């Protein structure tokens, strides 16, 4: 890839964090308003793509949770899986999401589930995007 323009290099980190904040916002509002973990993951993916365009795929990959797309996706699947366990241990069917209210804020394992979806989409699709954007870079000698 040609050297990215200085404008992109300057803007990318800000855009990156902005998109991540949007992703988090989408995740949190998703329960009542349009949004949710899936869309949040896609927006986070866009953030990662911007970062990869500006600084290259390896740098963008290091910024992912657990510093690798595959690990990020695996963590997401694991979180979603684990979020169903408390209910199962309590005797309810797997993936029933219990709700508790702590200090006026309703919390549920469903948030954990949605966070898992976000991470899995982010890492899973991000892995494809980063690998494709990385085709340019010569392969390392092993």
């Amino acid at each position, binding site marked *: 890839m040609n050297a990215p323009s200085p404008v992109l290099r300057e803007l990318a980190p800000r855009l990156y964090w902005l998109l991540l904040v949007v992703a988090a916002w989408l995740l949190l509002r998703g*329960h009542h308003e349009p949004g949710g973990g899936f869309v949040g993951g896609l927006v986070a993916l*866009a953030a990662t793509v911007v970062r990869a365009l500006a600084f290259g795929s390896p740098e963008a990959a290091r910024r992912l949770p657990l510093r690798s797309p*595959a690990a990020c*996706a695996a963590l997401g699947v694991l979180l979603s899986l684990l979020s169903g366990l408390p209910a199962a241990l309590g005797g309810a069917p797997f993936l029933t999401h219990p709700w508790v209210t702590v200090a006026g804020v309703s919390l549920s394992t469903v948030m954990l589930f949605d966070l898992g*979806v976000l991470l899995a989409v982010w890492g*899973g699709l991000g892995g494809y995007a980063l690998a*494709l954007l990385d085709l340019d870079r010569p392969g390392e000698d092993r």
Partner: protein
Amino acid sequence: MSHPPPDSRPGLLREALGSAAFALVPAAAFAALVFGLLTRPLPWTWTVPWVPGAGVQLSLRVDGLSALMLLLVTGVGVAVFVYAAGYLAHDRRRVRVLALLTAFLLAMIGAVTADDAVLLFLFWEATSVLSFLLVGTDHEDEAARKSAQQALLVTGGGGLFLLAGLLLLGQLAGTYSLSGIVARGPSLLHEPLLYPALGAVLVGCATKSAQFPFHFWLPDAMSAPTPASAYLHSATMVKLGVYLLARLDAGFGDWLPWDLALVPMGAFTAAWAMVLSLRERDLKRILAWSTVGALGTLVMLVGLQGDAATVAAASFLVAHALYKAPLFFVAGNVDHGTGTRVLDRLGGLGRRMPFTAAAAALAGLSMAGLPLSFGYLAKDVIVAAKQDTETLRLLVTVAQSYKFVGAVAVAVAAVAAVRIFWRHPGPCDSCPAHEGNAAMVVPPLVLAATGIVLGLAPGLVEPLLAAAARAMTPGEGGPPVDLGLSWSPLLLTAGTTAGVGLGIYLAWDPLHRVLARLDPLDRWGAAALFRAGLEGMRRVAAGLTRTLQHGRLPAYLAVLLGAAVLGTGALALQGGLVFPEASSPGLPVAFAAAVVAAGALLACGLSHRLVLLLASGLVGYGSALLFLFTGAPDLALTQFAVESAFVVVAASLLLWLRRAGAARSLPEPRLRPGALALGLVVGLGLAGLVLAVAAGPQDPALRDFFTAQAFPAAQGRNVVNVIIVDFRGLDTLGEVAVVAFSLLAALPLLTALRAGRAS
């Protein structure tokens, strides 16, 4: 086997303690079993509901037959574990093999105690997989890998037959409990489906117990380490097939087709395996063929009717385990001590390996069925079984082939016990043969000596054999068991067999030369046919792949789209096209539709790839707008996000292709009449389908349910998201896992692509 330099003392001690810990598992199981047998009457049952919806229960049941198998599994297991610790001392595979053996022990205990057909199948398959892992222990050796694959394909493929058969049987009997199936067996004899059901079970048992024509995998499986061969491929696992046949025999033994299948199959397998054993030079493979022979004999005995046959089957089961496992240990010791198992290079080892020679002599005595050994008693009841059987005369005649089998068994015993230890002081006198360590000589000695002790005092096992025979007999009450010696006619038979066997032993080398020269057996034998079948499958698959996966993207697209349109179009036309009433959309919707249309038309007319990509992106954004204005904001958001990421990645790929000079090799976009026609058909077809769906009646039940329940049941007002994360959470979990796994599959390809481009 190579020996690394000896470890330090603490290392040795740790290794010994570790091995001892492994051996505790079968030892504890054996002790508990013996204690239970002495204190509690059989049968023992234990049931826990497992998958109640499917009628599957975690039910275990131990009757006489199970107890007999359990004794073999745990008793021989102790010997095997101790032997393995000695055989694999200083070997880096030791822990792996011991761990696999432990897992196998547990699977085997489960298989012979399971009363539920599905449970039995699960344990059965577990033993197949563990056998695969053990046969492939030397996975760096290609032959070992092939043998492991062959064993898995044969027994695993048979396992599928077994599953089908057991499910059919369960359907017929109305229960998946094995004891229930057996109890209802006689009332099922008129069912026409009984043929496929028992036929499939028979195939499963035949693959597991290496019956003709599936006999070939067992000798090839000898690439496993010797302890595993002795345990899995002689004493226990391969007897699972016999075990299940014997179990079902209590229910279906009076059914003539059952006997007509079992007796000839077992008898022919036994005789043929004995012929094939004469073609071998490798001591372990000779023993393996004689194991196949013993399994054939067992299947034949199960098929023969009459009480004596069941007693004979039970006795032979025990006798065989008690002499064949030690003989495998002997083969392992000889291999360990001399570095070879080839007969021509072995001889006169008796003085260098006295304990191994003693174990071989004791075990050989039993295998040859000479007096004073348990093998003699077993042979005694086998002969009796054929004399007082109520089976068809024809089958009794077929069963006479046992005389030949017995004679070759005598010869094999003599080869293993006499020839390599006391004769042929051949080239191996120069080999530095040495005796194995204590852990390698005690187990064969103990097992072989047990075979003699039981021969002298059969009363020790008589109650158990009676219980086992009773479990193989329909109804209540069992046959009387009398293992006492009846000298007059049987000694003569035994003498004849021994005489003929001695003749075969003396003529072993000439016989071997004649048989080894029969190369049609190599070319047309079952093993060769199996390999040819595998190779053929590979060729057909490769040809199909070349034809279907030609790599031309436009052709793939044409096939996919054409098929989709033909299929859905036909469906849509079945109901007749009904156009919904015309309605004028609002301005925003019209705008979005115009954006989509403009993008599509531009994409068709442009020839510059990058612009073309942007135009197609316009279609995506237009669709997102359309979703937004028609009340699907979630969908619109998703569409925007996907489209953006896709266009950016695809654009950078296009740029890269151009820079890499690869773009020129692609045909330039131009008007293709065929593509135009296909495009028109697809577009019109899909439009028609959408119209037909929109015009048809729609069931609002789901929509109403989710809208009404989203907040009360899941505390969310965004119905779409609530469906995704809560109502259909399991689906979402599956999809998320698919995304993650597809990345795992794609990463190596993408990495390889990059590496390939770079070089």
